């Protein structure tokens, strides 16, 4: 479980987070939405210690990480993986080397096990046979898939997704979303996703939270979330047409 208590953060002179209280349930997919520039990525980066809050606490399990540095912070980070907005693949390495990198560096794996795990992961994300290519030779969707493979190859407990479908065409975005939900259900990791893909995220997520004016305004399962009475949030989530849930989400 990840828990943020009263997290405040100012970047330059601009207050971004003004007291975020948020609990991310274990083993579920939680999506954070909000307008551009609200600080969703900043919030995500607080969860893995890339940002330290000016005030407040960030708990990962029973460890408070907001003031941790060095080895103790790295020990917590070993439980995480993160897929960045632009995938953040290492330019100087091939796709295979990128995916193998956390296995070698984080898990200290060596020998043929690395190749087996990497090839298995590349196949799962639909990049079988692409291991020799370099990031510059890949399309946006392929880069995201490679980033996803790199994030999941170490079988992490918690995965953070920072706008995983931004800049992709709708079909590719759908494919990436499906990949994320399939992987989440297969491996059972705790997933936190920042996304603008409304209404799709309501069909994928176990919980949806909205960041508004530096605070979490609503955090609830999708079926409950869409019943919120806040007119601004209603406008935000239904700008592309009303959200209609189906199947299990609607029944819940």
């Amino acid at each position, binding site marked *: 479980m990840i828990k943020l208590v009263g997290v405040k953060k100012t970047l330059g002179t601009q207050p971004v987070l003004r007291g975020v209280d948020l609990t991310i349930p274990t083993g579920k997919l939680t999506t954070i939405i909000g307008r551009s520039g609200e600080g969703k990525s900043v919030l995500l980066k607080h969860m*893995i210690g*890339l940002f330290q809050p000016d005030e407040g606490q960030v708990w990962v399990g029973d460890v408070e990480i907001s003031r941790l540095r060095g080895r103790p912070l790295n020990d917590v*980070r070993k439980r995480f*993986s*993160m897929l*960045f*907005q*632009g995938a*953040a693949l*290492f330019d100087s390495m091939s796709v295979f080397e990128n995916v193998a990198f956390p296995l070698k560096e984080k898990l200290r794996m060596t020998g043929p096990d690395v190749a087996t795990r990497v090839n298995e992961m590349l196949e799962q994300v639909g990049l079988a046979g692409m291991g020799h290519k370099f990031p510059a030779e890949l399309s946006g969707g392929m880069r995201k898939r490679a980033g996803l493979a790199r994030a999941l190859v170490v079988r992490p407990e918690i995965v953070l997704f920072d706008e995983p479908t931004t800049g992709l065409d709708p079909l590719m975005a759908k494919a990436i979303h499906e990949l994320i939900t399939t992987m989440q259900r297969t491996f059972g990791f705790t997933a936190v996703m920042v996304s603008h893909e409304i209404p799709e995220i309501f069909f994928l997520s176990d919980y949806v939270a909205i960041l508004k004016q530096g605070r979490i305004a609503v955090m609830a399962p999708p079926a409950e979330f869409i019943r919120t009475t806040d007119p601004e949030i209603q406008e935000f989530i239904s700008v592309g047409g009303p959200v209609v849930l189906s199947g299990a989400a609607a029944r819940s």
Partner: protein
Amino acid sequence: MVAAIGRLVLKHVREMGRMLIFLVSSFGWLVRPPFRFIQFVKQLHFIGYKSTFVVVLTAGFTGMVLALQGYYSLRKFGSEGLLGSAVALSMIRELGPVLAALMVTARAGSAMTAEIGIMRITEQIDALDTMAINPLQYLIAPKMVGGLIGVPLLVALFDVVGIYGGYLVGVDLLGVNAGSYWTSIESAVEWKDIYGGILKSISFGLIISWVCCYKGFYTRMSAEGLGSATTEAVVLSSVVILVWDYFLTSILL
């Protein structure tokens, strides 16, 4: 006015403090496992081997022009035989370390800043952090060592090629006696000239890696920011090299 000056001074003091912490931390991470030997070799190849061509070219022409200028000055006093020592001492003590360092700054230093800066902008450095890998240890420390070892080797090459460039012009073109060219070098160059040059080249290697890595690591998150970081890295490294050269020379003499 006073407040503005104060703010400016504080800003620069803070920046210098941050630079010093960056340097000390990078060396601190260097001595902690895991040791990444392959990374060191890659950086040595990038800073050292890949700068060889530009260093050889610059060294050759520097030696040649030194011989040309030196020959016409020495001829006035009938001392053309001392041409070898004039070329060698200028190269070993001063021009070798300084010009090689400036060339490495222009070629490898700017590339280091750009590479690290792009990694920062595209969140590759954050990605290292999230994998519990310290970027100072993985990225910066090998570049520091690459600079510390690579630049002295390039300076040595610069000196040798420069002296041979001087020989080419002085002996083959202007007719100075080959024996007196080499003998004057042998009698004039002392050990303290050589280790002074080595000391300079080591410190210049450190300055280049330190300044260029720092500027890339803390680049502003935009293409414009990266452009200015690269320019600042090259200008600052070059200025610091020349200023430090003056102080080091005044101590060594």
